[in-house]
């Protein structure tokens, strides 16, 4: 009594004995593996199945023999030929790498070609996941050397752990015997199956026996060995490129997500420069397009390396065409958004506003850093400040492009400040609107004029090259004391030069100026306090006194001289008169 299985080949139903089925099945798998490489595999397999179905139906005799037996299957297989009988044909079909193939058929060894190897984890020789032994089999290296390399990686910064985990995830486990043979680069023919099975029975270390045959081969063909070594090296490089590509794409994805959250305002540590020129949806699209434009070439490289290393199928036409299209369109999008961004800066506009100042003898000019808040005003998280600014993101709102200069006017005129609010925009209209959004005024309290450190533009405004210039028109003769805090906002005025004029080692906190006809002149108020000895002072006093005396004497002498001259004239006139008389 035998168990039978019902199968159908090309929509014809056969009853087949279990044992016969197993044989037929493994035979068909073999054939599929063999022809799987060629492009016409589908048709060839169809023809073969057709023929098998026909041969089976010839065996069936209704009423007498209705079940396909193992003998029938064996007969069919012998007629159709084993995979090993096709081998010669395959050589011709896949004319690539023919030299290597012929060599191996000559020596009648199981073909050990690096090309067909698959990178898989080896479950028979493992410590954690069998990654190292899999890699070792792949690169024809002893597992222990692979492990040593990984231990080195572990030691240097622990990068090996990451690499190991990634490989563990990426590399499939070699479960079946066919997998294990693919891992070692043996082609899955029946003989090799048998060989692998025998090896297992004998408990031989497959690596050892392979190494032995490798050595035997190597001595006879050193040249081919070197080229093979080169190939292994190239694959190693390909492998590194693969990992780099994968990590790059991973990094790009993270960066993209990060920048998008930045644009949306969830965080402000990570903002891609330039995206603030665009509005939010535009910025998101631009970021995604930019990421794709960079990531797709890496993806292509990754796919290429996968093909080289793992013999994966090339991407189908639609997918690769789609990738191309996406890449091109994302590049176009990036260019488009650059253009859009530039458009926003095409026109510029300046709004002039004049505000009167109350006249003072001395003006104290200082800056208030509006970001600084007295500790007493605020709790630890700066919540009060956030509330004051209506919860808006400070960094996006405040600009510090402010400059201050001074002009002189007639000493009797009234002082005033002129503000120039500048901004850019797509059109003159937009630029003017943007300029009008700027809010910046200095405040005067008696003789103190305080400038804020930043000006604000409207909420949710994007950067449009806004700037403010304030010009103080002060009457001639006004005195100005400028605080050091505002130094960096001064235009056409060197705080530092004036500071030097003080001729002091001390840190000067403010400088004093006077408004001349052409502008502010530095007038160091605090004369250096030079310590002089009493003697020196006395001598100096004496010298001064002497000088004064000399001056007095000189003046006196001049006076007498003048009088003498006048007298002489008078005498001359009287002499003339007397002579005419």
């Amino acid at each position, binding site marked *: 009594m035998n168990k039978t299985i019902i199968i159908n080949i090309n929509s014809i139903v056969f009853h087949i004995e279990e044992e016969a089925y197993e044989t037929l099945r493994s035979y068909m798998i073999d054939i599929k593996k063999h022809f799987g490489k060629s492009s016409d595999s589908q048709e060839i397999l169809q023809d073969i199945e057709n023929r098998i179905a026909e041969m089976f139906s010839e065996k069936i005799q209704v009423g007498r023999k209705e079940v396909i037996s193992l003998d029938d299957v064996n007969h069919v297989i012998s007629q159709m*030929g084993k995979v090993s009988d096709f081998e010669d044909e395959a050589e011709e079909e896949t004319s690539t790498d023919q030299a290597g193939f012929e060599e191996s058929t000559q020596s009648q060894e199981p073909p050990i070609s690096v090309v067909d190897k698959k990178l898989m984890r080896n479950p028979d020789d493992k410590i954690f996941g069998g990654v190292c032994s899999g890699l070792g089999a792949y690169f024809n290296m002893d597992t222990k050397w692979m492990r040593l390399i990984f231990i080195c990686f572990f030691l240097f910064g622990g990068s090996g752990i990451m690499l190991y985990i990634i490989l563990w995830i990426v590399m499939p486990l070699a479960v079946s015997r066919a997998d294990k043979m693919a891992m070692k680069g043996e082609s899955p023919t029946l003989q090799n199956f048998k060989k692998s099975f025998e090896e297992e029975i004998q408990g031989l270390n497959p690596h050892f026996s392979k190494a032995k045959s490798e050595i035997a081969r190597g001595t006879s063909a050193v040249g081919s060995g070197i080229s093979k070594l080169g190939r292994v090296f190239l694959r190693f490089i390909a492998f590194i490129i693969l990992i780099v590509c994968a990590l790059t794409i991973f990094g790009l994805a993270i960066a993209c997500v990060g920048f998008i959250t930045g644009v949306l305002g969830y965080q402000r540590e990570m903002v891609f420069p330039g995206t603030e020129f665009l509005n939010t949806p535009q910025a998101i699209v631009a970021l995604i397009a930019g990421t794709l434009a960079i990531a797709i070439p890496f993806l292509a490289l990754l796919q290429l390396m996968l093909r080289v290393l793992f013999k994966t199928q090339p991407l189908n036409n639609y997918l690769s065409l789609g990738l191309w299209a996406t890449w091109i369109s994302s590049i176009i999008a990036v260019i488009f958004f650059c253009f859009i961004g530039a458009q926003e800066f095409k026109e510029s506009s300046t709004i002039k506003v004049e505000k009167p100042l109350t006249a003072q003898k001395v003006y104290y000019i200082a800056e208030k850093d509006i970001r600084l808040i007295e500790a007493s005003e605020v709790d630890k998280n700066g919540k009060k400040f956030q509330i004051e600014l209506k919860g808006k993101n400070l960094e996006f709102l405040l600009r510090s492009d402010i400059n201050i200069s001074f002009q002189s006017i007639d000493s009797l005129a009234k002082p005033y400040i002129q503000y120039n609010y500048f901004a850019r925009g797509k059109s003159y209209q937009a630029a003017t609107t943007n300029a009008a959004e700027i809010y910046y005024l200095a405040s005067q309290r008696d003789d103190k004029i305080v400038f804020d450190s930043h000006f604000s533009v409207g909420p949710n405004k994007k950067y449009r090259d806004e700037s403010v210039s304030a010009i103080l028109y002060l009457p001639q003769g006004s005195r100005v004391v400028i605080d050091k805090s505002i130094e960096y906002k001064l235009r056409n005025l060197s705080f530092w030069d004036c500071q030097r004029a003080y001729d002091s080692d001390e840190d000067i906190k403010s400088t004093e100026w006077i408004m001349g006809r052409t502008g502010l002149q530095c007038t160091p108020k605090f004369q250096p306090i030079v310590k002089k000895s009493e003697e020196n002072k006395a001598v100096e006093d004496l010298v001064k006194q002497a000088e004064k005396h000399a001056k007095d004497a000189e003046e006196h002498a001049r006076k007498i001289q003048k009088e003498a001259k006048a007298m002489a004239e008078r005498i001359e006139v009287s002499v003339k008169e007397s002579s005419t008389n």
Partner: protein
Amino acid sequence: MIAENTQTQMRKGILEYCILSIISKGEIYASDIIAELKRAQLLVVEGTLYPLLTRLKNNGLLSYNWKESTSGPPRKYYQITPEGLEVLHKLDNTWKELVYAVETSLQGRNESKN
């Protein structure tokens, strides 16, 4: 080993030629092609034939029709195309040249090594 290799190379070279000439005789079924080839002691197993037929068909030298069969599934009947005929004629000439070349080089030898 080398002899064996050369043998397969030689066989392979003429196999296509023979298949083409068998098919040129008229519409024929794959297993009949095999029978003919076996009679000519050229082919060992059937599995080798199908890839060859597919390739010749893809090169436009052969075409086929499906025909109902009494004993089983429908069968593919192959026939030669005009291009196939053209190629066959070229191969005929080549074969004559080859026969001449081989015979000339074998002249004066008593036994052939094989």
